[in-house]
């Protein structure tokens, strides 16, 4: 077995709601090899999105350890977490979260430009990524001029601009129709090879779940649901 790119040990995450304390993750362990597609399944409210947010450092956790591409997240301060998000992870959310005042090309290029890439390089790489997701001809369209599926594909291209070793996708087909979901499924399936990345995918979609090399079920803790082997 290769060294894991993500490794969580004894992870605890709770939310307080008044006097009630909700245990989302209770001493959870998780490990994932580089270059794999991992799907995380579970019922609504089981904490799938929260778990993904913890892996991407969007959310803090109560205790335990999370190591992602060598970064020990529990030790990082706010400034280092920004660097981690910039260098290590790319996000794809259920809602595309594109910036409305920026074209598809600019949306994709922006994280690279903000990370210090020269403007010309960022725009060039964004064009290549739009090509990868099949939207080169829509580069200068604005989010409001794109369909739901196209917006999600732009979001995927954006997640890849800084060549992150890990892409975290949170129910990316959740708001799409069947045809768009199928297109996106196909794109996500070839992502690890095309973009040399590891994909962690939270989904409800049983079709989408089939693309995973390994699946985990989140229900209180995390359990390995299936492993296709490599």
């Amino acid at each position: 077995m290769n060294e894991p790119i993500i490794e969580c040990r004894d992870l605890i995450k709770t939310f307080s709601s008044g006097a009630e304390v909700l245990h989302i993750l209770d001493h959870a362990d998780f490990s994932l090899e580089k270059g794999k597609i991992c799907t995380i399944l579970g019922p609504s409210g089981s904490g799938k999105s929260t778990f993904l947010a913890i892996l991407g450092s969007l959310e803090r956790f109560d205790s335990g350890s999370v190591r992602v591409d060598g970064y020990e997240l529990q030790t990082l301060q706010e400034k280092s977490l920004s660097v981690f998000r910039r260098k290590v992870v790319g996000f794809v959310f259920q809602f595309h979260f594109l910036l409305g005042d920026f074209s598809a090309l600019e949306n994709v290029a922006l994280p690279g430009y903000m990370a210090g890439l020269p403007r010309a390089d960022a725009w060039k790489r964004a064009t290549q990524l739009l090509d990868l997701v099949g939207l080169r001809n829509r580069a200068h369209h604005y989010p409001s001029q794109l369909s739901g599926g196209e917006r999600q594909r732009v979001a995927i291209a954006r997640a890849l601009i800084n060549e992150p070793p890990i892409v975290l996708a949170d129910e990316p087909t959740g708001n799409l129709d069947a045809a768009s979901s199928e297109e996106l499924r196909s794109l996500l399936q070839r992502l690890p090879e095309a973009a040399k990345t590891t994909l962690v995918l939270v989904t409800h979609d049983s079709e989408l779940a089939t693309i995973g090399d390994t699946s985990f079920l989140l229900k209180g803790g995390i359990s390995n649901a299936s492993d296709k082997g490599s």
Partner: protein
Amino acid sequence: MHQIKARNLKPLFFLGLRFLFGKPVQNPKAPVHRVRHSAFWGAVLGISVSIVPLYIVLFVSNGMIQGITDRYLETKTGHLQLALPFTLTGETREKLQRDIAGLGGVASASFEVDGIGLAASSRGSTSAQVRGLDQSIMADEGFKKFIQTDGGTIYPEKQNEAVLGRYLARALGVGVGDTVTLITLRDAHEGQMLPRLSIFRVAGIVSSGYRELDANWFIVRSEAALRLLNPSTAYAFIGIKTVDPYGAGLNALASGITDQLSQSGFSGVQGFSLRTWRDIERSLFASFSSTKSVLILIMAIAIIVAAVNLASALTTYVIEHRTEIAILRSFGVSSQQTASIFLLGGAATGTLGCIAGSAVGIFISFYINQILSGIQAAINFVSRLLAPASHPVTLLNPDYYLERIPISINWDYIIIVVGVGIAVSALVSLVPAVKSSRIAPAELIRHGQ
């Protein structure tokens, strides 16, 4: 993986400007975006509108003060005044005058005797400031530049001739060729004083262009003044014009003249004293300066109000666009960078406002005389239409102000105004900037749920 370069301001500017001002109209069907961006164009407009009157106040008040100061210096006080004992002989005085005129940095030196009298004509009487000018005043370019004649000469050729200020002549109802009587006081025996009546022919009527100055001028030849004025109330002096009255060298020149007095043996002699124009009219110029400061302060408050409007627009933007800010944070934009985006955006808004306001303000200031004339003509045209018998309106009454405002564009002021405008805009943007930096990327998850 590519190397992350050091922090770069360009992308922050790119983001800030796009956030606040949007892309050039690409999507006319996005009214929400247009409304959002119009708030910032409104902030730009607010700042520019607040800056325009500041420039007008600065340049007009500066022009007015400079114009009035020039007139005071060139037609009345001179740049330096050397007070003389009234009893000084003509020969000694003329030698001293020649010695001073020969000093480096001195443009001219002219003897003058001033006193008070009562001018009277068949139509009325009024107090008058008797100015006994030496013939050498006609060699003073500054005096000739600012004295304009309404008729006759600007200097009396004969002992019984007088040149009157425009408003004194009007008060007396006299013109060139008419006669006026000047009543002064002369010493009688045992400390008593008696009136002395002297008749003069009006040889000319002049104006400096500023009523305060020439309202009382009764100009006679210095020999006549020495004869008519009472030594106990009159003031004799040499008015000295220098090459650079506003420069730092004026005090050094004053020291040179004091040395000259010592060499001539007048050091410590009673009746001699030397003052610069700043000392002579100190209270007047202090009054000008404080009036200008108050006006600038009032105008500065308008800029602060406009800057607060910008801060309000930015804060509203941050509150309404937490999600977009959280998106930036999710792909690694640090809280510091987020704050910088809004700080730079605010500064850019201020810069746009300052540039636009400066352009308009400078243009209006530059053409203020023409603009005022145009407005005055328009008002009078309308009032004549509505009330044919109405008196013409004069916006800046030349009786009390300069007839024409001398405007000179001062680049130091422009740099200060633009610099302060941008700094204030950046300063007020601090609050929304800090607010934006506190938005956590986790807000995206809340949004998605």
